[in-house]
């Protein structure tokens, strides 16, 4: 393999110091002179017609500068997919969930804003509430959106091969049901934003978002501003995991009030509001039928899924597709049928969350595959290996595995965990389980129909030659894209890591679709690499002219210009550089001509040196309806082995150890790759064992706090052994592809399979609380008594 200087290393994060010392500034830390504070009024009821809104008392409160309702905000619809724009800034005729936004206030301080919001009087005519998706599709159920009288907001029917016929040829066919629970993103930083408006320069919004570009487009569309007059920029962002990947009423209202008042306005969610706004993982009800041959060959899969969508579509159109399309692979499966239904209910809208649409499906299927392996008398790893896909394989739904280290991952966790010594040999109460999974490395298409590039980048060399400025609109949300893109720029240009200064997450820098679908390392990485190569070419061209050496006979590495031939005399250029910089410290010396000297001379010859890059995926597979959801330039994959202890008297599950192998194509930053693996595992462990957003009968979130919505603490996380597999993806920059989401796929089913190994009971409903395990153990005991 080629020798690299900056990539494939463990350089520290560019933002590490600021974050560790508390100097990093997040949206709620920002403040401006004359700034107003915003507060929202949200519906206390889950379904109601809005009869009347009286804002007069709120307006009269001293210190209040603006009060807005649908009357002021207008009726422009927005959402995520243009096919399902079903939201307006504020409720117009109806409130559809507890938390639906009714009005907002801007005032001189937060106390006043909150007091004023509470003074707004709303007359609700309560309507029947429907919380259960299966109730919602019954004849005569309350209708949530007039356009969808049966409450089915989206449905998908796909078939590849012929599943019914194929099932007839199988030796073993099993049907199982599975259900997860509605999740919360539980990012550390609740959404917050600050907007200000200048009639000449337009609107600026600083927001805690994963997708500045989509927010920019939505703001322009809904507020009726030219796109060029809307700038969206990120301060530091404290995590997103999906729910921050689209524009929200928080951002729209804050902007609206900034425009109306002419003053900066800041507004932030409380933790409760994060739960109400939600847009996190759906609840999925899967029924899977899988057929195999005696020898373990997978033949067919039939997948039916009902999704509890909540009150609006959000990312749900993509979700309902993903819940089907992310099965099949990483196994060679010739026949697959999917029927999916996304149903409106009077609950906070569900959207995208790490492993978008595929996590529950994966958990359901990998557990079923484990049962099938046991029924066939095969080791679960052998069974998987028998069907495993490899580089170059194409799935029945046309996903091209242009690289795929799935087999390598599975073999790595098998030996890394000591599987062969443990499986089937552990005492009761101890168990080991395995699972696999894969994920896209960037959605193949933008969420709106367009031929736009997905990522652009600009590199500008400072005129003195000493600094490489990287301007990328890509979104750093804590996952480390600033670091990885800095490394890519440095490597491609040939300078040191510290020579590159990255600025990111600003729509003024260009177009980048944002931090979702695990796309930025591959897509933004390509754009940055191209921009760096372009800048490098220009510098070398000038050198070539001045030294009379062909460009091909020069290279730049570690900040030095390397000549292929010995004895190049660059002393005249060095003298020129030193003369230019009389009085400056550190005149260049030594036997190598430096990049700094070369970049300065390039500027003197050509003016400012700027390189640009732009990326969009090439032609992708799939001509069928919905092929846009799942086709990707590359796919990452993971295998995990989990070891658990189950307390057979209380049912309590302890995860003792996790061994995880992930194929990220090529690790630009090894520490970041491991960080994503660990983070995915912890999120998966939380969903498997603890996390569930609960509701009372009126549709109010019953546990909108991080006390009662339990994400794992560090004491719940076991030691994780992370194994990086590198399959060199041909479509990725330097061979890199995703790690951010694929790594969560196997976690839940590996835990479920380990719990089964320990106890002999299968759990088909998350989370695996001690009470649920206890009940299943009791049932099993009673069943055995009867037999």
């Amino acid at each position, binding site marked *: 393999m080629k020798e690299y200087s900056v990539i494939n290393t463990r350089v520290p994060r560019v933002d590490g110091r600021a974050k560790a010392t508390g100097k990093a500034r997040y949206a709620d830390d920002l403040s401006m002179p004359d700034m107003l504070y915003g507060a929202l009024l949200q519906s206390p009821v889950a379904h109601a017609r809005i009869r009347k809104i009286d804002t007069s008392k709120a307006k009269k409160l001293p210190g209040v500068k603006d009060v807005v309702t649908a009357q002021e905000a207008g009726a422009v619809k927005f959402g995520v997919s243009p096919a399902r724009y079903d939201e307006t800034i504020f409720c117009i005729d109806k409130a559809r969930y507890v938390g639906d936004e009714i009005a907002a206030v801007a005032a001189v301080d*937060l*106390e006043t804003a909150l007091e004023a919001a509470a003074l707004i009087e709303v007359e609700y005519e309560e309507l029947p509430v429907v919380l259960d998706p299966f109730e919602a599709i019954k004849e005569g159920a309350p209708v949530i959106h007039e356009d969808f009288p049966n409450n089915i907001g989206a449905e998908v029917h796909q078939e590849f091969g012929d599943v019914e016929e194929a099932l007839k040829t199988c030796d073993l066919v099993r049907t199982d049901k599975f259900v997860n629970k509605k999740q919360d993103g539980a990012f550390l930083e609740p959404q917050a934003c600050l907007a200000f408006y200048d009639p000449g320069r337009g609107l600026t919004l600083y927001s805690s978002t994963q997708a500045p570009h989509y927010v920019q487009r939505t703001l322009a569309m809904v507020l009726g501003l030219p796109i060029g007059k809307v700038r969206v920029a990120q301060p530091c962002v404290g995590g997103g995991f999906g729910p921050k990947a689209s524009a929200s009423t928080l951002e729209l209202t804050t902007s609206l009030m900034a425009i109306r008042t002419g003053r900066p306005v800041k507004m932030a969610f409380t933790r409760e509001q994060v739960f109400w706004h939600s847009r996190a993982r759906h609840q999925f009800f899967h029924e899977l039928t899988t057929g195999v041959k005696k020898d373990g060959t997978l033949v067919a899969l039939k997948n039916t899924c009902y999704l509890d969508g909540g009150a609006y579509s959000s990312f749900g159109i993509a979700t309902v597709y993903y819940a089907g399309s992310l099965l099949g692979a990483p196994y060679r499966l010739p026949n697959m049928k999917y029927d999916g239904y996304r149903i409106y209910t009077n609950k906070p809208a569900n959207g995208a969350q790490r492993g978008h649409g595929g996590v529950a499906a994966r958990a359901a299927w990998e557990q079923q595959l484990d049962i099938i392996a046991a029924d066939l008398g095969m080791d679960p790893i052998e069974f998987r290996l028998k069907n495993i896909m490899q580089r170059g394989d194409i799935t029945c739904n046309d996903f091209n595995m242009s690289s795929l280290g799935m087999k390598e991952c599975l073999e790595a966790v098998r030996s890394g965990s000591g599987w062969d010594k443990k499986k089937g040999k552990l005492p009761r109460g101890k168990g080991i389980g395995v699972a696999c999974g894969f994920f896209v490395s960037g959605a193949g298409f933008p969420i709106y129909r367009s031929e736009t590039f997905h990522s652009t980048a600009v590199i500008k060399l400072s005129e003195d030659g000493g600094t490489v400025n990287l301007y990328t609109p890509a979104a750093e949300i804590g996952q480390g894209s600033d670091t990885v893109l800095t490394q890519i720029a440095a490597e491609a240009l040939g300078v040191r890591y510290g020579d590159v200064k990255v600025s990111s997450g600003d729509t003024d820098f260009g177009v980048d679709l944002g931090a979702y679908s695990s796309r930025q390392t591959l897509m933004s990485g390509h754009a940055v690499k191209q921009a760096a190569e372009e800048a490098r070419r220009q510098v070398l061209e000038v050198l070539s002219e001045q030294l009379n050496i062909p460009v091909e006979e020069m290279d730049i590495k570690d900040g030095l210009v390397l000549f292929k031939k010995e004895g190049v005399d660059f002393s005249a250029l060095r003298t020129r550089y030193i003369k230019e910089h009389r009085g400056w410290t550190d005149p260049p010396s030594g036997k190598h001509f430096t990049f700094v000297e070369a970049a300065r001379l390039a500027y003197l010859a050509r003016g400012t040196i700027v390189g640009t890059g732009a990326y969009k995926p090439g032609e992708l597979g799939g001509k069928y309806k919905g092929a846009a959801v799942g086709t990707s330039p590359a796919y990452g994959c993971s295998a995990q082995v989990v070891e658990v202890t189950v307390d057979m008297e*209380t049912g309590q599950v302890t995860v003792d150890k996790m061994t995880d192998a992930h194929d990220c194509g090529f690790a630009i930053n090894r520490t970041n790759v491991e960080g994503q693996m660990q983070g995915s595992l912890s999120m998966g462990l939380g969903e498997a064992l*603890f996390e569930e957003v609960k509701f009372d009968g009126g549709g109010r979130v019953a546990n909108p706090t991080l*006390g*009662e919505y*339990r994400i794992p*603490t560090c*004491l719940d996380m076991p030691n994780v052994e992370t194994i990086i597999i590198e399959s060199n993806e041909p479509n990725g920059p330097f061979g890199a592809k995703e790690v951010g989401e694929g790594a969560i796929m196997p976690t839940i089913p590996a835990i479920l399979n380990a719990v089964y190994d320990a106890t002999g009971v299968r759990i088909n409903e998350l989370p695996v609380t001690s*009470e649920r395990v206890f009940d299943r153990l009791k049932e099993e005991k009673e069943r055995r008594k009867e037999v």
Partner: protein
Amino acid sequence: MHLLPKFDYYEPRDIGEACKLLSQLKGSARIIAGGTDLLVNMKKGLLAPRSLVGIGKIPGISEIEPVNGGISIGAHLIIQKLVEFDLIRKKLSVLSRAASVLGSPLVRNRATIGGNIVNARPAADLPPPLIAMGARVRLKSRRQEREVPLDRFFRGPGETVIKPGEILTHIVIDALPPFTGGDYIKLMHRRSLEIAIVAVASRITLDGPDGVIRDGRIILSSVAPKAIRAVRAEKALIGERPSEGLFEHAGQIAATECTPIDDIRGGAGYRCSMVGVLTKRTLSGALREAKGQ
């Protein structure tokens, strides 16, 4: 958004001044210790006292001291100290065990033992081991000072016998008889930052290293409006030779003595079953300690 309501703040320098202040402010004042319960409730709008009286500057109520073979614990002691102090770990290990599973390091470094008691939540971690060990609380007001056994202190969720104007100053535990041991187990969803699904504290005293059980206490928490004693299960132990079978039997009785509810943390049926398991296990733990193992 939850903002703290406005209030006046006082910081008396000694217990006398504090008592005087409380009696002057009558019902409009609240004592604030670590604030980990009080401020949360104030932010939620459940409480809006006009004044808060901080007791952090009062000398003599934040110490752990041996007295006549027993132990006196100042009410203002932060809970982390119960985890760390040798005297507690050696003589009242059941209390330090309970303290070590309360909240998180952040909470343990602010919250006080007094606040945990006076707050009177049905799932609070410190009352069960304290009741098991026969603790009394010392209450001081402007006019008098009195001691109340902790198992007669609680009346229901958030309700105690403390009167307005009274300050809890000390928790007193008399010398424990020889061959006494205790244990506390808190069943939690996750490992930290948890309110108990069910918790049980047990204590037994043997009449000799291999003797019969002379005295036994079983305190059930999170299964009734306040921590309760499983009286019939306790009776079943007295005079018996300790054994797994006996403890299992006591657990089965205890499971019938609680009145849990279904709530967001767990179902009533599961809680009853767990009372049985945890009673058995804590009795075994207490036995090991009583035998000095």
